[in-house]
Each structure stands twice: as structure tokens, then as C-alpha cells.
């Protein structure tokens, strides 16, 4: 199963995962890391370590802000088994849980981008 890793500012990852679990019940193979107190290099190291653990089937790294320090750290981790998607929202995460066992790691980021954007609607 493709693993999910949420990288965000402060408690972002913990909170969005908590919110997701309140909707769908407990979720396996998904973790979060925070940038709290960490230099970009240190956060990159933490992301790399998380990618190496149980990452045999690949990791999708969800980042809160494109262009931010969390994004830069995710890029600097240079984990070969990981792909990165930014601008995570709950519908994107929900889509990941449903699709991660049927879509390949290389195709997942584009699908997540599409599903995340599709959930943004103005009325």
C-alpha cells in the first residue's frame, strides 16, 4: 500500500489527519511531520527517515504550502520512493485513501491535484 506523509506548519498535519479520521475512521499507513523548531535541513532529514520506514511501495508526500519551507524540505529530502503534492485539502486526502491501492505512485500526484482542485467550488 502506498504510504501517505503529511508535512506542514506546526500542528497542521496532525489536525488534518485528525479531522480526516473523524470522517472516515482510523487510517493506516499515513503519518505527519511538523516543521516546528526544525531547520529546513533537519526537516528534510526527518522526511527522508519517514520515507525510508515502510516505504517499499512508495510514499506520497502531501505538503501544506507550495513554495514554503516545508515544500523546500520535501524537495531536499530527495527520496527516490516519494512523490510530492502541495496544497493538501480534506477532499484530496479522502481521494488518496480511496485510490492509493488502485493507482500507481507515478500517476497519483496528478490525480490528487485534479481531485483537490475539483473540490474547490465557489457558489
Amino acid at each position, binding site marked *: 500500500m502506498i504510504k501517505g506523509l503529511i508535512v506542514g506548519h506546526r500542528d497542521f498535519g496532525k489536525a488534518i489527519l485528525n479531522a480526516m479520521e473523524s470522517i472516515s475512521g482510523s487510517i493506516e499507513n499515513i503519518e505527519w511531520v511538523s516543521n516546528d*523548531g*526544525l531547520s529546513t535541513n533537519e526537516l528534510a532529514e526527518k522526511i527522508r527517515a519517514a520515507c525510508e520506514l515502510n516505504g517499499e511501495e512508495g510514499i506520497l508526500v502531501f505538503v501544506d504550502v507550495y*513554495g514554503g*519551507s516545508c515544500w*523546500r524540505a520535501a524537495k531536499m529530502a530527495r527520496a527516490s520512493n516519494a512523490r510530492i503534492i502541495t496544497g493538501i485539502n480534506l477532499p484530496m486526502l479522502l481521494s488518496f485513501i480511496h485510490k492509493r491501492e488502485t493507482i500507481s505512485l507515478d500517476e497519483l500526484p496528478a490525480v490528487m491535484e485534479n481531485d483537490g482542485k475539483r473540490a474547490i467550488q465557489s457558489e
Partner: protein
Amino acid sequence: MPVVLARIDDRLIHGQVTEGWGKMLTPDFILVVSDEVAGSDWECELCLASLPYCIKGRVVRVDNAAQVINELDEDERASYILFESPGDAYRVIRSGAKIQQLNVGGMHSSQGKREVVDYIFVDDTDAYYLKALRDIGVELDFRDLPEHENIDVMTKL
């Protein structure tokens, strides 16, 4: 325009700098001083990709920084200067960069460093250079965001 913010922050360009300080200081230009970033085209690109569209950026090596900083005085833009560490800032100021005030806003945790406040972690080298900066007359301001109080960190080093 003068330099509106000189700051030590190992995250370099990030939200606190562009948004937190940016909404008050509205910089047009950010100069990043880092041998590590300047030494790799890929890291330069990554670092500058974090900039909002309205702010331009440039990465320079520590050795070249003083000259570039002093030329900023003649520039029309409001500029930031970002250093990765107190040691880099000290070297640049000692080689002639005109910087009287330095904000210390992000020295994050890494191996062998001790916590002073939750966004400032130091080892002996950092402590040495912070004291050295103070001793050559640089006014140090310890805060991550402008709305926070300046914390007296020097007594805790």
C-alpha cells in the same frame, strides 16, 4: 531605499519573512547570503522559488556579500538581507557591510544545539558569534515576528 530588514534565519526565504515581516515592510528584493545554497544551481532555484511574484531575489556567497549589500544602499528597492547563521553575518559585517541592526528570528534545532527559546537553538560557535556581533556594536533584535517582543537572549547564552 535602505535595507529594511537584515535577519538571521536558517529557513532563509519562508512565510515568516515574506508574509509576517513582509506585510509591514513590503520588500521588493531579498538577498540571500549562503555558501551552501549559492554552491548549487538546484538549491538556488529551490530557494528563490519560494518568493512571491512581486519580490525579486538573489543568492550570494558569504565572501561576495559585503560588496553587494553596500551597493543596495544606492538601489531604489526596499531590500531584505538573510543570513543562515551568526557566523556568516559576523564575517559579512566584518568585511565592511553596513549593517547596524540585525534581527535574529530563526536558528532552528539541529544536532548538538541547545534550546534558548523555541525558535533559537545554539551551539558554542553560534553563542560566540552572537556575542561577537554585539561586541562590535551591532544591535541585535530577537524575535520571529514583528508583533512579538524582543527577547533578551544574550544573558541565556
